[in-house]
């Protein structure tokens, strides 16, 4: 659909993530490293789940549509579970790495907190997941035509872009809640994260009814945003203070030498 659609969809899908990266991560090399490592972990989880998927497809009956659909659902569920397993694995790795970093660094305090790590790793997961979801679609969107000659919906490109946007942000929020839950041993929170991930992925089976998948996904996105905000230490009071620009006084008021 030409360059306009290509750039439009790229900005929609990767805009917020790029903004977050540029403004909060790019300046700190340590954060960049952990982001890339997070992306790598997601990639490994994808590799494993696709290996399993490939083998099961080869073994299955290729002509039966119902079986293929069943396999697809199985593949999605397996992939989600593997991603969460790898998120947990990354958490464990980061805990160990942090102790190691602390040991070799000169300072007393940890150079990067677990909270920041959760944010960075979530964003890493998100970037990689978004890239795999949408890059093929973006490359097709550069051509002169649009989807629809076989009767499919025209809104394919833009829906995919919005979905990718949601997924990237969701990965970030899930990681924050997940790591917090692991720190505080709150297993129910962990389960909820996994379940919401499963829900969002399975919602995509409703496509091409794009309203059916996008709207619930954005609802879940806002719920997770709020939850992650509170896990990260935000309260409504802070938010109100920020928005009404009374923050300067508050900060000054709080800033007492220890």
């Amino acid at each position, binding site marked *: *659909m*030409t360059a*306009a*659609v290509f*750039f*439009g*969809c*790229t*900005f*929609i899908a990767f*805009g*917020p993530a*790029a*903004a*977050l990266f*540029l*403004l*909060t991560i790019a300046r700190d090399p340590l954060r960049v490293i952990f982001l890339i490592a997070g992306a790598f972990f997601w990639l490994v989880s994808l590799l494993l789940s696709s290996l399993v998927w490939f083998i099961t497809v080869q073994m299955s009956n290729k002509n039966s549509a119902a079986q293929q659909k069943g396999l697809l659902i199985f593949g999605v569920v397996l992939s989600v579970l593997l991603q969460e397993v790898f998120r947990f694995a990354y958490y464990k790795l980061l805990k160990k790495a942090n102790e190691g970093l602390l040991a070799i660094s000169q300072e007393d305090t940890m150079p990067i907190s677990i*909270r920041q790590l959760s944010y960075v790793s979530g964003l890493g997961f998100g970037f990689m997941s978004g890239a795999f979801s949408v890059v093929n679609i973006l490359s097709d969107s550069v*051509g*002169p*035509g*649009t*989807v*629809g*000659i076989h009767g499919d919906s*025209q809104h394919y*490109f*833009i829906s995919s*872009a919005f979905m990718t*946007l949601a997924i990237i942000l969701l990965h970030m929020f899930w990681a924050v809640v997940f790591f917090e839950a692991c720190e505080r041993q709150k297993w129910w929170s962990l389960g909820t994260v996994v379940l919401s991930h499963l829900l969002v992925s399975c919602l995509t089976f409703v496509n091409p009814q794009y309203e059916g998948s996008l709207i619930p996904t954005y609802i879940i996105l806002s719920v997770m945003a709020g939850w992650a905000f509170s896990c*990260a*230490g*935000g*309260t409504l009071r*802070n*938010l109100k*203070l*920020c928005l009404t620009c009374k*923050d300067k006084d*508050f*900060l000054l*008021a*709080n800033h*007492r030498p*220890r």
Partner: protein
Amino acid sequence: MAPVGGCIFHDCLICLWLCALASISGDTGVLHVLETEADLDWILSTGPHPPYMVVMEAAFFTRSTMVKMKNSSRVAGVAVIKSNTGPTEGFSPHTSCPNQNTGVYTEHYGPELANCNNTVWNPLGNGLSYEDFAFPIFSLKDDNQTQVIRKCYEDHNMRMNGSAPQYPLCAMQLFSHMHAVTDTVTCMRRTDLQNSFSINPEKLCDPLSDFNVWTSIRPLNNSIKGHKENESVVIAAARLDGRSFFWDIAPSAEGTVSSIVTLLAAAQALYPVALEAPPQRNIFFTFFQGEAFDYIGSSRMVYDMENSKFVIDLDNVHSLLEIGQIGLRNGQSLWMHSDPVSRKNTTVNKQVANLVANIKSVASSLNLSLNEPSATQALPPSSFQRFLRVRPVPGLVLADHQASFTNRYYESLYDTATYLNVTYPSDLSPEQQLEYETEAAKSLTQVATLVARSIYKQAGGEDRFLNNITADTKTVAKLLYGFLIMSNNSWFSSLLPPEALGRGSILGLVITHIINTLTSVTRFVQFILANMTGTVTKLNQSQCQNPKDVPGESKDLYSYSWVSGPVSVNGTTDPYCVRSSVHLSKALSPAFELTDYGSREYSTWTESRWKTIRARIFLVASPQLEMMTLGVGVAVLLVSLVVTYFISSKAELLFSATREPPNTTY
């Protein structure tokens, strides 16, 4: 789906040739099917979604429509749906005066006959093939794919009650980018520059080139070029090529196939008698390739003869008989055309009159009527004109038209088997059709017998042997079937080398710059002629390919070809070696030998190089929707930048609740 082009170039400053100057990324346009005049208005002026990709019925493929489209900026390309029969009033995209600049008539030679002042040979010619179009023009067969295109148009692009259709609209993209531009001189200059200076030279265009096929009754030593002592030769000539507006579609039934088949049948009829009772002079059968493009083959042969690079030279040529278009005789008389300017010389006139008398005497015994057109009428466009340019050789051109061509579809895609009345009853299998003798076959057989006997008589053969020379109707029928309907038949396949089996058929009689395609017309004629005039030898394959060491065989006099023989029931072949005096001679315009790319003497046609030729259909969205998507994207990006900056600058405050409370209280 066949496109137009290889953009073919000529030096002629006036005729920049038909060149799909398409863009390298393909031309896209909204589909519109042109069925009525109202559609034409829609495309050219009132339609709201230009540029349009026009899919037109064959009836609209006329000069007026195409010129209107050429001048409009709202047309992105044209696809013509072929129909089997042409318009009844005739259609010829060639010029009305074919090859007018390279024939024999110039301001110095017969000026009153030059540029068709005297007779317009192709009055229906609209010159469409010589127009320069800036968009691709494809031809579509009327089959399933075309139905898909129509359906897409009907589903998305039809107007409802006069109002314009809504986006998304069905669009088509045609790719046929041609590398060469402007004309031959520019293109060859750029190619030469590339060859001299570039590490990876890319050729932009190729000169049109193929081979002429020739054979002689008495074998001549082909390794010794130039004048042959005591050889006087009668040449029987025909052309091998045809063309149309579209690339690779040139059935050319009346224009070319009729003369090829006649000459081949005549050669087959004449050979046994000429071997038994050799005539006084030698007889040459020649098939010229590339005649549609300013006489490439014949000009090259004449050039080679002049410069002693051919097996004989012009001093050896006694007379010439050329077979022109003879398929549409319909029981009427044949016409013998001659050149009035050379006949002003009494010697030449006497020789031509002698030839005419010989033919007439043969014709009377065959119940064929032959006439000469008026004495001041010019010679029609023919290879013979190139001989006359150099020397006043006595000769005739045999044709079925008295003045202008009877062929209403000269050099067009409608000059098909149906036009020549080569049709078969529907219940015959392909093998039965191969053997079936149509009326056209019978008519051409008569002419072939006439030609064979006349040549024999002209070469000094004795009259008592004339009745033994008879062309075979079955051969003519098989030849017509092979050249016009399906060349992948059992008889043709048995005459070709084994490696040619299983390939596709000739796609029309078009000159090709790809040398050695085993299924081109040149090759077919070469092997058919070899079969008809040659002998089977007992050589095995390696000896056949290199008969130097075999006693009694001579590579100078003969050519040896390894052919597959009849294919048996279980698919095996029994190949054998054929010895004949059939040779190929290069048909590349002398202009390229002399590197005179702007020559006015010789043909300077070249064909542009191209990479992909394809087409695809898809839906296009409205530009507004696309811009809106871009706008939303930019908005999302800006908003997220702003919000992120806001959050990151206030991060300490926003996420402060989990900081350890300071030890001191306040």
